[in-house]
């Protein structure tokens, strides 16, 4: 019904918005109107070279990993102050967490468990991404030499549409026993992701972008995604573009992963492919993911598992969260600190081979963190 009204008078809604716009400040437009979001970003929380960053520990092993991040930051002298907002349990204040991210612009986040299968409960991970319009998720899968893994020397960047597709959360039972779940693909979002991917490839000296799809079956939705990325590819003649069907892609990934460089895909495929690649190079505890929107960025461990089973046992791998923090420092422009921590992580894992049980070692989480701190203290730079 609503859509029909809109079709009949396509400009009315726009007019309404425009009329409101004249009486609203840019600030209100950004924060109150859902349709014209974020015209102007609020100032970034950076004062005297120190950043304020929202920290959402999440559930499971999240809080202990965040403790390690704080500890490492203290010794590395990273100029970042954390504002911790707890969103671990069901009744905590998600809105406050969102407001906090909006004012700080950047957040580091553990994973929040989505246990409930009841229809009324919206996954809070998804809610955060949608509300902040974090339309792209980047997972840089790079093998650590020295970590036992099925495949060596992998270097793949997975770029995933993060807000629509199968995660549109539109499901209904029209007739008893028949459930329809909508997969939404829009041209504007596909375009943003493709553009982001090609820009990323260009900036980071990557050679090829592969679009992963299933357009042979979902001819319209995935078709649109594929078509859009082909169109965007034309603007970047220096970067090679090809496409691959998701089932074939999974097979190729486990047999010949080195053929991939940058990959872009819709939401669900991204979730699957990133877990496949994580499994190939050493499990959930190593990689970190970045979520970007136009104004906000959230950094989190790459595979979104809470690890509730191993919480409190001092065996969780702290590397994923620490590399998320390194990504965050890079994003904030504290490149020196990022390098310092990154090198310490690499030395610990690749040279000292201090591994937690998930990588086949026997070290405790604190042993790994302690060694990383030792390496940081040994390095002779101290950028405050």
């Amino acid at each position, binding site marked *: 019904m609503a859509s029909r009204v809109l079709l009949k008078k396509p400009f009315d809604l726009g007019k309404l918005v425009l009329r409101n716009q004249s009486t609203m400040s840019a600030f209100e437009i950004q*924060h109150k109107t859902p349709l014209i979001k974020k015209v102007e970003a609020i100032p970034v929380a950076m004062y*005297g070279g120190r950043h304020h960053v929202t920290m959402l520990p999440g559930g499971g092993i999240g809080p202990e990993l965040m403790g390690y991040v704080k500890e490492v930051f203290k010794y590395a002298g990273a100029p970042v102050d954390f*504002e911790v907002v707890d969103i671990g349990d069901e009744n905590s204040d998600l809105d406050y967490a969102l407001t906090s991210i909006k*004012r700080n612009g950047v957040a580091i986040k553990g994973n929040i468990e989505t246990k409930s299968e009841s229809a009324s409960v919206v996954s809070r991970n998804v809610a955060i991404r949608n509300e902040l319009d974090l339309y792209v998720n980047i997972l840089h899968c790079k093998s650590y030499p020295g970590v036992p893994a099925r495949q060596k020397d992998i270097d793949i960047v997975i770029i995933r549409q993060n807000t629509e597709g199968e995660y549109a959360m539109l499901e209904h039972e029209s007739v008893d026993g028949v459930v329809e779940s909508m997969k939404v693909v829009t041209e504007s979002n596909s375009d943003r992701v493709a553009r982001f991917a090609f820009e990323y490839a260009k900036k980071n000296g990557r050679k090829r972008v592969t679009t992963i799809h299933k357009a042979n079956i979902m001819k319209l939705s995935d078709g649109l995604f594929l078509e859009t990325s082909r169109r965007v590819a034309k603007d970047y003649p220096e970067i090679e573009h090809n496409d691959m069907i998701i089932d074939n892609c999974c097979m190729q990934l486990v047999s010949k992963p080195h053929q991939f460089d940058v990959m872009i895909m819709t939401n669900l495929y991204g979730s699957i492919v990133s877990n496949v690649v994580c499994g190939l190079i050493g499990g959930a505890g190593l990689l970190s993911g970045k979520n970007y929107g136009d104004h906000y960025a959230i950094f989190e461990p790459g595979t979104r598992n809470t690890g509730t089973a191993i919480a409190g046992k001092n065996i969780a791998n702290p590397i994923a969260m620490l590399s998320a923090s390194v990504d965050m420092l890079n994003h904030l422009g504290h490149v020196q600190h990022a390098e310092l921590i990154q090198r310490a992580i690499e030395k610990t894992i690749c040279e000292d081979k201090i591994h937690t049980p998930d990588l086949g070692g026997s070290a405790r989480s604190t042993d790994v963190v302690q060694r990383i701190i030792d390496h940081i203290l*040994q*390095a002779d730079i101290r950028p*405050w």
Partner: protein
Amino acid sequence: MSLLARNFSKILVQATQTAGVRSLHSSLPSLNETGISERPDTRITCTLIPGDGVGPELVYSVQEVFKAASIPVDFESYFFSEVNPTLSAPLDDVAKSISKNRVCLKGILATPDYSHTGELQTLNMKLRNSLDLYANVVHVKSLPGVKRRHEDIDCVIIREQTEGEYSALEHESVKGVVECLKIVTAKKSQRIAKFAFDYATKNNRKKVTAVHKANIMKLGDGLFLRSCEEMAKLYPKIEFERMIVDNCTMQMVSKPQQFDVMVTPNLYGNIVDNLASGLVGGAGVVAGASYSANCVVFEPGARHTYSEAVGKNVANPTAMLLCSAKLLRHVNLPQYGDMIRNAIEQVLKDGKIRTKDIGGQNSTQEFTYAVINNLKMPSRV
């Protein structure tokens, strides 16, 4: 002097004892067991502007304390002055140094009342504008042992200091009629409001008070007030309150404990800063800092050069020392910052050594040595 020398060595011994004790969990092996030696402290460079009046004496006191505690900070000193233009370092050099080091310790610059060259901007304003040091933070806190009319004052005054009345736009359109422009922009008002709320969030403060005069300057101060109100909506956990500047000054002298964080436009901030500083002991004991996005300049909160006391060795170095403690905290050396702050509080609490401004007879030097004697190395580095 011999007392001092004895204490130097005591501190050094303490330092060597505590340097090795550091580990993440007490159950974990310490560094010595893993066979990794700790690197020597790497040093931090900080720009230093002694300023006019007693500035150089106060800065010397800070350097003495830093030397005694072997704090790893190197100073890059610039003589910078408006009343002594021939000796002053060029603004560009100073600004460059500050943006490189990102921290600066600064005394107060004297500003002549009348401009002889037709220049409307003061050197202070030029420095602030060139580095975009937009937020001035003055932490007014009652000190132990300094008896004043009010107890337990603990408020933070945050002042916008790049626009407003200090825009240096004045002209005489008709003979005998001077217009002075007060500029208020939405962007800068939002920025300072956000700074205040973020400061409150970070430091676990409960309330932010916007000080204004929007009932008279409906557009200018109105814009400032509205920006603060809008920003307040993003901080649901912090109480927001507004107060007209005249009422604010009255409340300040009668019931100063009610204030927590205050955010003000330029001129009101200047007045409220000085008023509040007077309540806790004057210009010699209140520390402040000016922030831009990238760098911080730490300077005493109430800006007086105290030029009548130059060379008399009577100025109170507390404000400058507190500034240096804040500086150390900012550059990730909080243990040293706390050490200095605790030492100052101890000296003031003992009350044996006091400078003239807080009712004593001791000299700057004696006070400095008393602080050095009270330095206690933190048990864990």
